[in-house]
Each structure stands twice: as structure tokens, then as C-alpha cells.
């Protein structure tokens, strides 16, 4: 299934683009996608934290991705 990933801040700079289209296996979990991304872009492993958001909520590693989900990579936030 096709997953479109939005990227922000330092994660956007590390990956080099603000949206990334991935061909993920059906039933891929959030944890698996994070592992894949860290393997592909090793600089992501140096961040203080790295989360995935699905449909505007922070996702847990065991959550399963579905077609049509809004998925975003969330490096350490620093608002305020």
C-alpha cells in the first residue's frame, strides 16, 4: 500500500523533502515504518526522539497503518 509521509523540521532536512511516498507492505506497523526510516536515513537515529503521527494523533509502535491515513514524522518538538 502507498503511504504518504509528511516531514517537518530537522527530519525534513535529513530526508531532504517535505513529503515522501512509500510503498509499504499491507498491515505495516508504526514501529516497522520507523525502523525502515531509521535504516534508510541513519541521521534520524541521532535525534532525541522520533515519533509518527497518524491522523493528527501520536501513534504507538504496534498501531497498524491503513490506506488513507495521514502519516507524519515528528522529530523532537520545540514550540512555545
Amino acid at each position, binding site marked *: 500500500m502507498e503511504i504518504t509521509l*509528511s516531514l*517537518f*523540521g*530537522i527530519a525534513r*532536512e535529513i530526508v531532504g523533502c517535505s513529503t515522501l511516498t512509500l510503498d509499504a507492505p499491507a498491515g505495516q506497523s508504526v514501529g516497522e515504518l520507523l525502523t525502515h526510516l531509521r535504516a534508510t536515513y541513519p541521521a534520524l537515529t*541521532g*535525534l*532525541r526522539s522520533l515519533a509518527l*503521527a497518524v491522523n*493528527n*494523533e*501520536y501513534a504507538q509502535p504496534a498501531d497498524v497503518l491503513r490506506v488513507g491515513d*495521514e502519516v*507524519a514524522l*515528528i*522529530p*523532537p*518538538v*520545540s*514550540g*512555545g
Partner: protein
Amino acid sequence: MTIALTDQPIDVAAALRAAEDPAAGAVNAFIGTIRDHSAGRRVVRLHYESYDAMALHQLGRVAGQAREKWPMLTQVVIIHRKGTLEIGDVAVVVAVSTPHRADSFAACQFIIDTLKEVVPIWKKEEYEDGTTWVAAHP
């Protein structure tokens, strides 16, 4: 309740008026401004980037959590700036009103503390000789 993300200067006075309520005697406001230094380096300006849809959703959640913890909250105002900010510019305003003052301090502090932990907004500090995404690395 007022929740906003804006690339325009924040009107602090208007934010405070929005927090006032005839049933509430206490307004507490936190105003975050751009400092001229950070970790010993001179800051020239800041760039705020936001995941707008999620940021607004999470700001609403933080306001909802505050209302659960402080049911007497009469008004909640959260306004966050994005884009390029100069020294002294206002980056964020949180303003709440409650009947009694201790609740206003506690609720306002909860909101700004939680905002900084969960809301997907990122700031990049610009120095005379480089830039850093704040808090990105250990």
C-alpha cells in the same frame, strides 16, 4: 475558547481581552518572546515551522485536558506564531481566566508546559554563524 496558529504578529492585548470573563476575577497569561541569546550564543532571529492540522488538533486537546483538570476555567486562549520572528517578537500567548487566582496560575502553567511537550511546532535558531533546530539532539 480561542485556539490559533498565525504567521502574523500576535495581538497580545486582544488575546487578554478574549480571556477576560465577567464571572472570573483572575486572568493569568504567559507570553513567550524571542530572547537575544540561547545557551550562550547570540540569537539573530528564529524560524518556527508547524504541522498546522496536527498542531491545532493538539492545542485543542491541551485546552480540553486543562478544562478537565480545572473545571472552573472560564476562558482559555492559546495563540502560537509561526514563520520568521525577530528578537522581542511574541512567539506564544496562553491566557486563562478562573474565579480565583491560584487556579489561573496552575492552569496556565499546565497549558504552556504541555504545549511544549506535545504540539508539533519546531524552532530553528539562527546565529551569526549558523543555525540549530532547538532540542533536536540529546
